């Protein structure tokens, strides 16, 4: 152990098993942690003293026009080029198939020239129908919140602050409906920027784009208030500026990503689970960490009280979460986090007495006071991905490998029409990812390869037959010559052996599968909060809620914004 940080390189508390962590019901209870990608980005911005500039502001009285916001890192600059549009209300939709938006934006690598801006003006508003170059690193769009935008504008124009409860009810002025990165529509590929320290981490490009866009939303509404209220207009108060995040509507597109990037998922979960194990292995709790934990716990309780959703299931879960957090606070008061391994004792209490949501929130709370112990793990959350095939592997070895590494898949119930009732696909409608009913809709033959458990069972059956029949050489290469339909699954099995957190350990095509669980899992790694499920297929969330704005980042605590709570009226 390092005496300065208490860091245990390999904690003697085992990481939680994948059979527990990678099940949909637990993944669907995930919370952001200090290892989440937004948190890493804010820490880097702060520690490297990034500067931010309004490179261009050209908005008319209605707030339509062009804005360029630039982040200056120690070595490079990145600019968000935003186009603000007039959008008729009937064209406002969160769906991928939308054709127009209130705002569209590109994250530009550097500072754009007038010619660059003109080129982007002809393409960014078209989104998927536009063409982009490697200079653009991300592409996105957003719509105003009709519930909040007008209220805030009117209040600021009248020289008043918006009503805090109304602000809290929504949490954002604008909501992104897609943020594309890594090579989409001609944008720069991740491989081209992966050696840049500031963008090496997962989704740092997209997070930076959203962070700058959040700044734009505040600038836009203050611009409109000034135009409407002239000298009477006022600016948003500091607490409200921080409290307002960026909304996001997330649908099925997140799910295939998890299937396509199993090695990355393994890295993310391993980092989080290692962090938890390190904290649980600490022999004692210091006065400072206890105080910090209590502060975060109280804030999380308030955050949960303010977490209002329409979804009946999530409403019940939040109510139970509030009860569990009250019990957690009582437990801390009872035992004072004294004795041997106090954090582990608290964890065990949560595992014994609390529901899944509270358990996963406790994980997040346990990490909060222990930045020096766990923050280095954020650097392990990106990998160079490659799935390889071992063609020389004997079939008997392959079969044993499946039993050893993927027994979980074979244990799932896979018989009957309900076991493969659903299928995931790309629609011809702007490639919108959708989930179909296999036995009632066409297109099942074109499904994405997300039915891993089902495919593995078919593979095992054919391997067993080949072994029984004494296949010519009994190796993977010859087996795949006659069974090419298994090539994808074999490569996956061989490449992911030993990467316990790589696969979702559930049947993703079963009747009753809830894609929302996959979305929340991934969004929590982003750092999203206020999950607001709108159905089993999509959710709204808030990004960067509570985070310091660019103009206050230098003097702010880059980690002091988790579990944002609503400011008091007049704050």
């Amino acid at each position, binding site marked *: 152990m390092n005496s300065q940080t208490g860091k245990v390189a390999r904690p003697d508390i085992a990481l939680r098993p994948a059979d527990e962590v990678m099940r949909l019901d637990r993944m669907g209870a995930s919370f952001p942690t200090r290892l989440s990608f937004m948190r890493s980005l804010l820490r880097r911005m702060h520690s490297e003293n990034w500067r931010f500039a309004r490179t261009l502001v050209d908005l008319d009285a209605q707030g339509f026009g062009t804005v360029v916001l630039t982040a200056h890192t120690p070595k490079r600059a990145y600019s968000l080029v935003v186009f603000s549009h007039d959008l008729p209300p009937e*064209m406002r939709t969160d769906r991928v198939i939308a054709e127009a938006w209130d705002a569209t934006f590109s994250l530009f690598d550097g500072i754009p020239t007038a010619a660059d801006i003109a080129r982007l003006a002809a393409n960014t508003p078209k989104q998927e129908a536009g063409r982009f170059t490697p200079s653009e690193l991300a592409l996105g769009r957003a719509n105003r919140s009709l519930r909040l935008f007008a209220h805030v504008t009117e209040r600021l124009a009248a020289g008043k602050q918006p009503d805090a409860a109304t602000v809290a009810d929504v949490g954002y002025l604008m909501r992104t409906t897609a943020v594309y990165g890594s090579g989409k529509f001609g944008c720069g590929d991740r491989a081209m920027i992966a050696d840049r320290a500031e963008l090496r981490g997962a989704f740092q490009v997209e997070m930076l784009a959203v962070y700058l866009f959040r700044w734009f939303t505040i600038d836009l509404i203050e611009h409109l208030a000034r135009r409407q209220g002239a000298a009477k207009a006022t600016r948003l108060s500091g607490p409200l500026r921080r409290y307002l995040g960026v909304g996001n509507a997330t649908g099925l597109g997140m799910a295939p990503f998890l299937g396509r990037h199993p090695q990355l998922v393994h890295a993310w979960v391993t980092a989080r689970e290692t962090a938890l194990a390190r904290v649980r292995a600490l022999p004692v709790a210091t006065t400072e960490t206890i105080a910090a934990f209590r502060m975060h716990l109280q804030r999380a309780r308030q955050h949960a009280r303010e977490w209002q959703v329409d979804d009946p299931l999530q409403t019940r879960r939040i109510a139970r979460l509030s009860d569990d957090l009250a019990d957690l606070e009582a437990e801390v008061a009872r035992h004072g986090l004294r004795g041997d391994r106090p954090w582990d004792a608290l964890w065990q209490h949560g595992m014994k007495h609390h529901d899944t949501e509270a358990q996963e929130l406790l994980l997040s709370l346990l990490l909060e006071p222990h930045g020096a112990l766990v923050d280095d793990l954020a650097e392990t959350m990106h990998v160079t991905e490659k799935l390889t095939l071992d063609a020389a592997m004997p079939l008997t070895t392959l079969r044993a490998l499946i039993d050893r590494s993927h027994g979980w898949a074979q244990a799932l119930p896979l018989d009957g029409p309900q076991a493969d009732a659903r299928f995931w696909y790309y*629609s011809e409608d702007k490639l919108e990812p959708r989930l179909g009913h296999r036995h009632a809709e066409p297109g099942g033959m074109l499904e994405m390869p997300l039915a891993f458990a089902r495919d593995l069972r078919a593979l095992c059956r054919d391997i067993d037959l080949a072994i029984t029949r004494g296949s010519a050489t009994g190796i993977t290469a010859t087996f795949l010559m006659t069974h090419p339909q298994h090539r994808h699954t074999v490569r996956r099995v061989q490449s992911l052996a030993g990467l316990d957190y790589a696969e979702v350990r559930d049947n993703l095509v079963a009747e009753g599968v809830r894609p929302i669980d996959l979305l929340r899992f991934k969004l929590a790694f982003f750092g999203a909060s206020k999950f607001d499920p709108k159905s089993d297929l999509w959710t709204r969330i808030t990004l960067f809620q509570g985070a310091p704005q660019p103009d206050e980042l230098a003097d702010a605590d880059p980690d002091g914004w988790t579990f944002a709570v609503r400011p008091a009226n007049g704050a």
Partner: protein
Amino acid sequence: MTRLHLSWGELHFQVCRAAFGTGLPWGLAEDTAHTAAWLARYGIDPAPQLARLLGNIADGSSATALRLMQRDDISTLHADDQRPLSALVAGPSAADWWDILADRPAAQLKILRGDAPGWVAATIAQRHEIADPNAVRQIVDSPTGDLLISDRFWTTTATDGHEMPEVVTVAADDWRVVRDFFRRSLVPSTDASRHAGAGAGLVDRD
């Protein structure tokens, strides 16, 4: 000839799904995308061959079932019938088998009557991380024929340090054909799937 610039992500996504759209299994579709990327990396436009090879599978003019024969140090891959053997199927199998033969100096691998020997060679090179585009370039335009792979096939010095181009450049006409196959991997939209398949409403008032 009109040329298009693609990102590497676009190349991989669309080629993989174009191959899947012609009926190839996912695993072979993934290998098709890897080979296309290997060719592009070394400045060889994959689109013309790809358009032809996908068409060969779609219209049934190339065989997708193969057989392996072994005699002494010579292994032979050939089609299961009289048609030329599809390179999109033969390539991955040849690369697999070269895994097993590669450390035997006298070993030879023959691929008989393939519909694109250059594509098969590129698939082997990609899989074994052989940075020798010249060996492939010499045969890449051979429309059909036999291919003999031995340790002497790879003749030039590895081009270590070769930088990946920032974008992929493809012939527009050929890429249009690939895109047509890509569209075959998409599920036609229905009123039901448009309204309920992705969850969110079509108009929102949030």
